[in-house]
């Protein structure tokens, strides 16, 4: 199968695959914004005999200017990955560069190039939103009028202009989260890490945050590493996606690639009338359409699978028309990321979530 950018979907599945150790190839000489190779991190946990392996040879490669999603259940290793890539924690082994700088050799340079929105807010509740932004900017060496302008610009942009001079403890959850993102952007980073940015938000605030993240990626051309355990969020925001399970990447590609690599899309058609002669004619007609398989006919309802459902629709319509069974309605259903997760992690997302508790 082919993906839009000409690459192929890399899968490690549950069996270690040699390709899993290598990051995705950079497109045409552009340096990767984030490159991690074979990261291993173990934690000593009280009450357990051996150390817990949070990361078990995780590798990713993120091209600049995109939203890259790390999708996995709680405890899969997403936050550990973010902590390591943002210089907060050190990996036991493996190497990584962020914005072209090595996290091990040049952590100070990496810190200047990145912005981070962690899972926990981290904003000072007693200070006002504006004061939080000003302090954050000062820590990056920004001063005076330039910093004040930047703080006000961000308050405006994140719809906090009215709340800017109020203490953060009076903010709603959505406002706090928007301030967190603003804090991560004060110094105009090259790479922004968003660690589960919508966890704990109500649906309305979540949708607003999704729009904001979409705009960040679209307008500013900044590279975003997004971790999430919401399939819907990854599907909606990420241009490329890596599925994390038990500290490893088990699959990587665009959300569509990953879904397309499953059994393909389902194409459902409803015929205008009952098939002219019998169902056999319908089978035969559809069987001649390239890429169509798993055809089922149930009265007026016809279903089939295709690699690319949308592309197959015209041919399906034409074939059924020729067979004397014009179509009244047709729908294409893409497989969900839940299916993808099940396929690559070997267990359903909900099971994995449950197992981590």
């Amino acid at each position, binding site marked *: 199968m082919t993906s839009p950018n000409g690459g192929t979907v890399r899968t490690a599945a549950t069996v270690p695959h040699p390709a899993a150790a290598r990051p995705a190839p950079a497109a045409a000489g552009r340096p990767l914004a984030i490159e991690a190779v074979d990261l291993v991190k173990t934690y000593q946990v009280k009450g357990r005999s051996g150390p817990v392996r949070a990361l078990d040879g995780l590798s990713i490669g993120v091209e600049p200017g995109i939203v890259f999603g790390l999708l996995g259940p709680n405890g899969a290793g997403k936050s550990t990955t973010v902590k390591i890539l943002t*210089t907060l924690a050190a990996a036991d082994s493996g190497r990584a560069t962020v914005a072209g700088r090595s996290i091990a050799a040049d952590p*100070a340079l990496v810190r200047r190039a990145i912005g981070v929105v962690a899972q926990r807010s981290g904003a000072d509740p007693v*200070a006002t939103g504006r004061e939080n932004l000003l302090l954050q900017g000062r820590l990056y*060496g920004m001063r005076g009028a330039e910093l004040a302008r930047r703080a006000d610009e961000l308050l405006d942009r994140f719809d906090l202009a009215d709340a800017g001079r109020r203490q953060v403890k009076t903010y709603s959850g959505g406002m706090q989260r928007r301030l967190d993102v603003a804090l991560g952007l004060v110094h*105009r980073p090259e790479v922004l890490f968003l660690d589960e940015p919508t966890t704990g938000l109500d649906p309305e605030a979540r949708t607003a945050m999704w729009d904001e993240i979409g705009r960040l990626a679209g307008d500013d051309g900044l590279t975003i590493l997004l971790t999430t355990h919401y399939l819907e969020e990854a599907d909606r925001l990420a241009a490329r996606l890596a599925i994390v399970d038990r500290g490893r990447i088990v699959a990587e590609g665009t959300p569509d690639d990953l879904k397309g690599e499953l059994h393909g899309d389902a194409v459902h058609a409803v015929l205008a009338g009952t098939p002219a002669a019998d169902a056999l004619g319908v089978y035969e007609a559809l069987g001649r359409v390239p890429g169509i398989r798993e055809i089922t006919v149930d009265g007026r309802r016809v279903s089939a699978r295709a690699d690319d459902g949308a592309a197959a629709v015209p041919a399906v319509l034409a074939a059924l028309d020729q067979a004397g069974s014009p179509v009244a309605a047709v729908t294409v259903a893409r497989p969900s990321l839940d299916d993808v997760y099940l396929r690559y992690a070997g267990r359903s997302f909900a099971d994995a979530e449950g197992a981590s508790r």
Partner: protein
Amino acid sequence: MSTSTLPAAPAPAPAPTGARGSGARPRLTEGAAQTWFMTQRQFMAFARQPAYLIITLIQPVIWLFLFGALFRKVVELPGFGAGSYLDYLVPGVIVMSAVSANMWAGMGTLEEIERGTLNRFLITPVHRSALMNANVVAQSATTAIQSLIIILLGWIGGAHYPGGVLGLLILVVVASALGTIFGAFSNALGMLVRQRESIIGINTFLLLPLTFLSSAFMPPTLMPHWMQVVARFNPVNWALETGRAAMAAHPDWWSVLSHGGWTLLLAAFAVWLSLRTFRSYQKSV
């Protein structure tokens, strides 16, 4: 190096390459500036919590006038050696307040860890030492201010300070150093155990014994012998001995130097320990 994807934002983008921003400033100045920003933040938090502020200021007043009235007759005991109990009590209350105000510092640190604030700062290019230095500066400054207020209240209540300004100054400095000791230990404890209950337990366990096993309310000469021995190893007592010696009409400079020296030394050790714990915290993140 050239990820040419910097946002094409209207304002000039400060390249995060270290070529601009703090990279251009000398390290020391930048470190000092950062310490100041972080200290400012702590002062502001303090000032914005009026209830906390008022309690911190009122509690010493209660100690001063409650104990002053209760134990007024104690000076008549043979061998007490002070003119009025209030004179005797002022350094005691100052030192006790320095301990009780600073021993809760770990709670704040714990809160910052839990809220993610500490991690947020650690991801910025801020100097690691600026974070801890700000704690020390903010704690010793608030202790100094608190001490000055108690000195002033005592003076209004009729206390005498025969040692003059120099004696009082030494008292304030040594109280701040003692505050630093307890603040730094408390911070280290907070980062190490990450449990409020442990800090509360240890503090309530320590405050009164440490105060009463010192010359805060009663001169050592009137203590049972074993208490005198214990008091000799009590940093609260070191600070008091320093302050009392410096505040006397004829200061015992040897006592000031030795007790003051030990207090400062222990303060340096406590700060070093809190920095070490801070580093191990960073590893445990």
